[in-house]
């Protein structure tokens, strides 16, 4: 084995092992991702359930990443909840929150799962004019159109039309960007790159400029110990093929160092306030981000290898 192959193999093994550790933590806490609590719908639970469905979809669609064993019981976990009357009927019973309830189904639909009940519920939403009666900030509009497109319910969004109205398309200086703006940017890039499946349909100079912004934000969120945004920014930089820089390598190492022994990743460097937040709610999102980062990096490495 030559040095390049050895490094690649070491890189893949490291990422695989970090991801496996986190997937083990996620499996251990799978019940905490339930959208219901004591036979009631819980909106925090719906959010966690939705976010888990997004990671599941990413991994399920990429068998070559070889995480099937780790996520083998997730399909039944989602199906059981989606089939639960309490959850399934909420789409029709709570029209204002219908899209949030529908989101996990849309995710599973993009992997091939279909349910007549949810198909009908989606038709209800269209009949109510649900999508026309909500006002969304530009990146959330992109979010909605992206997931409807991926679940094959409508065509591809017009990225060039949406992009200029997002924060990423119009801001002037990184010092004006707060945490919400940073999340708007990371999510805009998730959608526009189709989670790394394609290059941005922008000029190379615009892409370099975007990478520059991501790097400025990465330094800031690394300095303040905001691991959740660090992870999302690292994913973005990988999507833009800007993951072989001094900054990237060191920030990724710092992010890997933030991993707890049990596989969970704290959202922030500073310890959570235990009385206000459970360990699960403090760690779950960043842990999902951590698994996604590992999967994205493995995927990119394998893609590069295949294209040689």
């Amino acid at each position, binding site marked *: 084995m030559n040095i390049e192959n050895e490094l690649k193999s070491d890189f893949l093994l490291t990422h695989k092992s970090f991801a496996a550790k986190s997937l083990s933590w996620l499996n251990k806490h799978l019940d905490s991702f339930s959208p219901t609590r004591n036979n009631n719908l819980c909106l925090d639970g719906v959010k966690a359930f939705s976010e888990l469905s997004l990671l599941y979809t990413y991994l399920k669609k990429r068998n070559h990443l070889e995480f099937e064993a780790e996520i083998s019981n997730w399909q039944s976990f989602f199906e059981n909840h989606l089939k639960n009357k309490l959850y399934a009927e909420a789409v029709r019973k709570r029209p204002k929150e219908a899209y949030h309830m529908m989101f996990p189904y849309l995710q599973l639909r993009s992997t091939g799962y279909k349910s007549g009940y949810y198909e009908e519920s989606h038709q209800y939403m269209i009949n109510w004019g649900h999508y026309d009666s909500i006002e969304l900030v530009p990146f959330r509009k992109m979010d909605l159109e992206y997931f409807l497109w991926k679940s094959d319910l409508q065509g591809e969004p017009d990225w060039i039309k949406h992009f200029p109205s997002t924060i990423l398309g119009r801001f002037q*200086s*990184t*010092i*004006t*960007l707060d945490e919400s703006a940073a999340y708007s940017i990371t999510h805009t890039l998730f959608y526009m790159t189709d989670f790394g499946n394609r290059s941005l349909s922008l000029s190379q100079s615009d892409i370099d400029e975007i990478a520059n912004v991501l*790097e*400025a934000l*990465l*330094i*800031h969120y*690394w*300095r*303040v110990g905001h691991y959740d945004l660090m992870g999302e920014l690292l994913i973005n930089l990988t999507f833009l093929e800007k993951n072989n820089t*001094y*900054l990237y390598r*060191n920030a990724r190492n*710092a992010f890997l160092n933030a991993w707890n022994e049990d596989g969970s990743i704290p959202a922030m460097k500073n310890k959570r306030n235990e009385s206000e937040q459970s360990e699960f709610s403090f760690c779950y999102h960043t842990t999902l981000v951590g698994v996604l980062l590992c999967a994205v990096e493995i995927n990119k490495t394998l893609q590069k290898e295949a294209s040689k």
Partner: protein
Amino acid sequence: MKNISEVIIHVERWIKSLEVPEQNRALCELGLLFIESIHKKEMLLTVEKADDVHKILKSPIDLINYNREEIIELAQQVGNSNVETWNVDREEINNWNQFLGGIALSYASKGDLSVVASLIRISAELNLHGRWIVEATDFLLDQQQPEGYFGLYFKETSILNKDQEVIFLLRLTVDILWALAVQNRKLIK
């Protein structure tokens, strides 16, 4: 972006208008010396530069982990070191440029002007003028009050009497002038 000459005229007027106790006169004089340095584009404060810069600047990553006091101290140490002997390759220069500028923007976003000034000073001492440092410098210049001093509202000043407040603002203003004086000197080299 503000014109530095206009900025300096206002600061000079403010410092000259101050009536400070004898023990703080030196601070006013230091500020005026930096103003003259900026006018002349030449650093008029002479410092013995004896420390080994390579022992002070180890890795750009250190900047991530330093707290604000350590960054301010680092600026002092770099100012006292033989920066002319700083001999690193192009890639390392780019890394320092990126981290000094990125962290300056990070502190700028939190409104911590002393740290921003320190990072600008370190960059200028090393003759680094990356775009993020330029952006941080523009931000710093925008923090000037109509009276001429730098700094917007500080919670610290709310517990100080009028004389203490002036000294507090004078110190910050002199820190910023120091950074601008070093930066201005380096730009003409």
